[in-house]
């Protein structure tokens, strides 16, 4: 896992160190080079002053001066073959030609015992100022290091500054992370968007949108589970009572009636359970089946065939009045649930002797599936609410799950169609019109 803090710090730190080191090194080399020139100049200066004032001003320069000791300068003054003056008698250097020279006394150990000297012939005297190369280097390094030192101190403070800046800038990220880690199923409130850096806002907004979706889905789920449990209680209580009646009924006739009632009670409970399962399968989160080409006419025929027996038993006449060959794209189960709930509802609410018609037809560029009944219909003000889960109309016939039209709606969301509820034949009953956008021909 990469951390922004770690990465920022590594890059800035190594970069800074590299830059400081390079700068320091080049300053160091530069200083050493410059000092070489300065030291030579110094040799010359000393030689000139010695040549001018040797007898009166000697000793010159004083062996006490710190500088001289540090710089290890030695001055010799010769007059012909006679050594007139030597600041350091232990260091006698043979005469050289005029000017700056580098002399190695011991050829083997090269520069260890080397000297830099300046020889000046003037007024019959020869002045030689010498400086050991080693002392020159030591001095040069000392001075160069002293020059680079502030750079080191500065870089130390820079690193601290970088660390503080990174920490401070990442504080809001840390806060957001903390808030996110505090979220759970129970706490799905949005994250505070105030006082956030511009760069973090889009991320927090995305997370808040996600949280909102999650929270809504979670609420819906828990409400649905509570409602489902509640809706199952009545059918179960009914079964319990019916079983009790069956147990207590004495003669055969009573037993038979009680048995029939118990059977009806169990049928109602299992219908409720299968409707709940159908609804759960059509939940938006459940993407199981792949969309395929569905034939509306074949599916309508299949549904009408399967409901024929139920309709006959109730005395309702069920007709497939129109069945054009049309196809749509979607999930087969969604279409089956949609059709079977609409047709089942229509049969349920239609009084015996009346008619339910089913039609599949093309209308402009849409495929239409239409179910028409002659039942009590749905008043216009209730046509929105009937799609809510467990919503039952006032005075509606009992025994339904209250889920049929919710299933239809969920199925439509999956298939991508629309439903319109209107009045049936001659203003009586209900007409449910489902419209699908058609598959492009040949596609």
């Amino acid at each position: 896992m990469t951390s922004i803090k770690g990465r920022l710090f590594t890059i800035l730190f190594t970069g800074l160190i590299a830059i400081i080191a390079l700068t320091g090194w080049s300053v160091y080399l530069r200083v050493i080079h410059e000092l070489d020139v300065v030291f030579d100049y110094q040799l010359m200066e000393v030689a000139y002053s010695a040549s001018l004032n040797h007898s009166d001003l000697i000793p010159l320069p004083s062996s006490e001066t710190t500088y001289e000791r540090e710089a290890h300068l030695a001055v010799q003054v010769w007059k012909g073959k006679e050594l007139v003056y030597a600041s350091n008698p232990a260091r006698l250097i043979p005469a050289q030609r005029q000017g700056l020279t580098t002399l190695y006394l011991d050829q083997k150990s090269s520069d260890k015992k080397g000297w830099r000297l300046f020889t000046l012939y003037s007024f019959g005297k020869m002045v030689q100022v010498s400086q050991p190369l080693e002392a020159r280097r030591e001095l040069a390094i000392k001075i160069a290091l002293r020059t680079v030192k502030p750079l080191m101190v500065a870089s130390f403070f820079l690193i601290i500054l970088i660390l503080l800046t990174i920490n401070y800038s990442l504080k809001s990220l840390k806060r957001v992370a903390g808030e996110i880690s505090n979220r759970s199923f129970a706490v799905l409130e949005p994250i505070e968007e105030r006082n956030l850096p511009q760069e973090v806002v889009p991320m927090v907004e995305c997370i808040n949108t996600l949280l909102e979706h999650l929270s809504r889905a979670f609420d819906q789920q828990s409400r649905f589970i509570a409602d489902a449990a509640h809706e199952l209680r009545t059918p179960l209580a009914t079964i319990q009572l019916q079983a009790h009646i069956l147990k207590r009924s004495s003669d055969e006739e009573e037993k038979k009636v009680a048995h029939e009632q118990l059977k009806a009670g169990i049928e109602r409970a299992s219908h409720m359970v299968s409707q709940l399962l159908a609804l759960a399968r059509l939940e938006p989160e459940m993407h199981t089946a792949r969309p395929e080409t569905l034939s509306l006419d074949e599916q309508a025929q299949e549904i009408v065939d399967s409901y024929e027996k139920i309709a006959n038993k109730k005395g309702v006449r069920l007709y497939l009045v129109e069945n054009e060959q049309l196809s749509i794209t979607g999930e087969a189960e969604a279409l089956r649930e949609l059709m079977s709930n609409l047709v089942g509802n229509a049969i349920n609410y239609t009084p015996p002797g009346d008619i339910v018609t089913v039609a599949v037809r093309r209308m402009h560029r849409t495929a239409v599936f239409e179910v028409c009944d002659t039942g009590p219909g749905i008043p216009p003000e209730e046509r929105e609410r009937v799609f809510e889960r467990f919503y039952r109309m006032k005075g509606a016939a009992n025994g339904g799950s209250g889920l049929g039209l919710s299933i239809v709606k969920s199925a439509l969301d999956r298939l991508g169609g629309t439903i319109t509820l209107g009045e049936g034949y001659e203003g009586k009953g209900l007409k449910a019109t489902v419209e699908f956008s058609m598959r492009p021909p040949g596609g």
Partner: protein
Amino acid sequence: MRILLVEDDTMFGGALQQTLRLDGFTVDWSQNAEDAELALTTNEYAVMLLDLGLPAKSGLQLIQELRANNNSLPIIVITARDGRNDRVNGLDSGADDYQVKPFDPDELSARIRAVSRRRIGRLSSVIVHGLITLSPATHEVFYDGEPVSLTAKEFAVLAALLEQPGAILSRATLEDRLYGWGDEVDSNAVEVHIHNLRRKLSKEAILTVRGVGYRIGEKE
């Protein structure tokens, strides 16, 4: 004992009415709050069983209105909602007891007997009057220690008379307690039950007050 059942679910209501009848209760059944209000003005009930999730006016509203009108009818709430708040709201708005679906039918019958007993201020579940002992819970009657076999209606007549010893109940009152809506009532049905009770217990067990009605006999 005559009970008013208020429940909108046809299948459940039917099954509950039948179950309670098997336990010897007389049950009138309304499917909404408005019908229940009408029934309460025309009949006298020992207990009301009320579903909270009614269409239009809710059960809670009905309880509150009854209590606001000083109606002290014992109410047992029957509902599918078992949340703590639902129970607390139901009881706080004036219900006497609470039964969550699904439930054991025997338990509901026991609760009905308990709230009606509390209403008339009786402590024991068994009624003892002289030689007669009547147990509403088990539907058993003993006379001088011997079990007596009674039909459901005979039992109901005896229970009604025993509940208020000394009170005179008219034939109409007894008919009212015995028969719910839609029950066929023979003109001399109550006389027949009284006759049978006297035969099975003793001649002096039930006294006829001429022109008024019946009352339970003196303690023997």
